[in-house]
């Protein structure tokens, strides 16, 4: 990542696909680990930790959507609905049966995966725009069901309060301890996705995306892999929903509306489709942007708007800027921030001897 790479020559495919592209990459990873595990939690103020926590959760969700949209080429506008499935599954299990997080978390993920497979079924017959519309219907139907069925939503407000997760009697109930809880799952998701992408399954996903007929001819069962992509993607979404639930201490369907699906689409488009690093960039960018807009508007916007209007203006501006950025990146840089990062890197690769 932050190193030069002269003198290493890859002579096998295995070496090319290795998790650490160069020996020195282990040191980079070690340095990052030191930064995130030791230095940041010790030095950074709690407010910034809470932002990082939101970023960690968003990374899990963005990775999931990127597996489906970026790697497999199946569009989904129902990502937030799968999150809500995970969130409510975990919340119900945690409150009604009193189960700990290490059971509710995978359970939420698996439930979301099951629902995801059902919503993904139309992808077997139809693709592209029809699939987009089918997942949109999935989002609306799931939203409606959760909101209307008290057995799932826990009554009038459609929200369930959950205790913070605890392990061996230790409760993760401060931003600082939640930081480690969420960091663990974000890193787990990143490693899992990196490994998935270079495995047989990941390569099959890419083949289905690039040319599905050719993929079928070389022996990839595209039905299976499309449903698998939906299942894996929804599993991530479900886990992401569970993490939101534990982080906020409440499962509320308003956190998982259609607009959130668009937020996640914005993340992977801005960050870079079909790339793990892109998902991370996108999650960071989309999480930070509203904060930047809010700070900016609190300084500048008060000249134009009254305080009462401000909340509406900020949320409107946030959505508007996301929309504009989606269009901008699609037209100008379809590979997103990840591409810009690669451009910077390849510039410095031979720096200062560029010629």
């Amino acid at each position: 990542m932050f190193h030069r790479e002269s003198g290493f020559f890859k002579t096998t495919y295995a070496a090319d696909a290795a998790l650490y592209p160069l020996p020195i990459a282990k040191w980079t990873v070690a340095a990052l680990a030191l930064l995130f595990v030791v230095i940041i939690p010790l030095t950074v103020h709690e407010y910034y930790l809470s932002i990082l926590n939101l970023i960690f959760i968003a990374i899990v969700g963005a990775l999931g959507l990127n597996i489906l949209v970026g790697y497999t080429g199946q569009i989904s506008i129902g990502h937030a609905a799968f999150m809500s499935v995970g969130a409510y599954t975990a919340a119900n299990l945690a409150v009604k049966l009193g189960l700990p997080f290490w059971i509710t978390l995978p359970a939420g993920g698996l439930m979301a995966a099951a629902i995801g497979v059902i919503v993904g079924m139309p992808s077997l017959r139809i693709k592209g725009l029809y699939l987009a519309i089918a997942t949109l219907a999935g989002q609306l139907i799931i939203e409606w069901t959760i909101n209307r069925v008290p057995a799932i939503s826990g009554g009038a407000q459609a929200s369930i309060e959950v205790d913070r997760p605890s392990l061996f009697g230790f409760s993760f109930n401060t931003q600082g301890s939640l930081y480690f809880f969420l960091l663990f799952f974000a890193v787990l998701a990143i490693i899992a996705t990196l490994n998935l992408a270079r495995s047989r399954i990941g390569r099959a996903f890419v083949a289905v995306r690039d040319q599905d007929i050719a993929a079928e001819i070389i022996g990839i069962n595209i039905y299976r892999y499309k449903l698998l992509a939906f299942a894996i993607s929804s599993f991530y979404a479900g886990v992401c929903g569970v993490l939101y639930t534990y982080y906020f201490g409440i499962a509320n369907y308003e956190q998982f509306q259609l607009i959130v699906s668009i937020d996640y689409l914005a993340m992977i488009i801005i960050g870079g489709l079909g790339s793990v690093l892109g998902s991370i960039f996108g999650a960071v960018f989309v999480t930070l942007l509203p904060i930047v807009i809010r700070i900016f508007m609190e300084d500048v916007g008060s000249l134009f708007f009254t305080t009462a209007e401000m909340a509406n203006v900020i949320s409107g501006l946030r959505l508007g800027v996301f929309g504009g950025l989606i269009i901008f990146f699609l037209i100008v840089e379809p590979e997103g921030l990840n591409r810009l990062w690669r451009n910077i890197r390849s510039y410095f690769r031979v720096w200062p001897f560029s010629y």
Partner: protein
Amino acid sequence: MSEDLEFAFALILNGASIGLMYSLIALGFVLVYKATDAINFAQGEFVMLAGLIVAVVLGFEGAPLIAAIVIVVAVMIGFGFGLERVVLRPLLGRPVVAVIMATIGLAAMLRGLGPVIFGSETRAVSLPIGDEPIVLGPASLPPVQVLGAVVAILFFLAFSWFFKKSRMGVAMRAVADNQQVAQAMGINVERYFALAWAMAGVVSALGGVVWGSMLGVDVHLALVGLKVFPVVILGGLDSIGGALVGGLIIGIVESLAAGYLDPYVGGGTKDFAPYVLMILVLMIRPYGIFGKRKIERV
């Protein structure tokens, strides 16, 4: 007529008039898809934008309705042309998913910036047609629904004339059928793409007037756009007649579901039934009732 039948008749008539208003919006979607193969996820936001403009113009003291309609049609035509030039044309030849995501981005942008620019309060669009319900047998309809249905029917007549008889309409059908051949015959394909978006703008402008006066104009007006998808999937994405029939069916289904199922589930089936129907159609007959069977099986 027995009471049950009268109830059903009232529901069907009410659903049909709402359904025609859905088809009016769906028409804009179909026009764009037919000519340019682009899916417009921002159709509801078009309607919202048009409604906002009408409401703002009417907000001025003594502004006549006709002026507001002329202004909104002009603005929406300009918006359609500009949109095609700035957003859609650079995406020509890119995967269909890119266009879908661009229109989703556009939808988010309009929905976000609309209230910032025009203010987020709900505005009324009052039409000079009174509030007296129009009584048809056992059913009584609000006049705005009748007006919306009439406008929708007029638009369908106008567009069927346009596509069958006028030179531009024929050229547009040629573009829709085969872009390369149309280009070889001397048709300026890009201009007709722009024209299709402008026509979608006109339809949305009128849609904004009738829907805006029925629901009031604020950001929630854009949610009408979500009903477009069941309509066009049912009718067939590239069929103008399909938009009409699809709208009628969805409107009636929605009204019947609300009338008969709401008492059992506590309301809200109206927003649910159309999507269930749509999923069924997608499973059984994804090209819809009148759509071309060019769907690619995978």
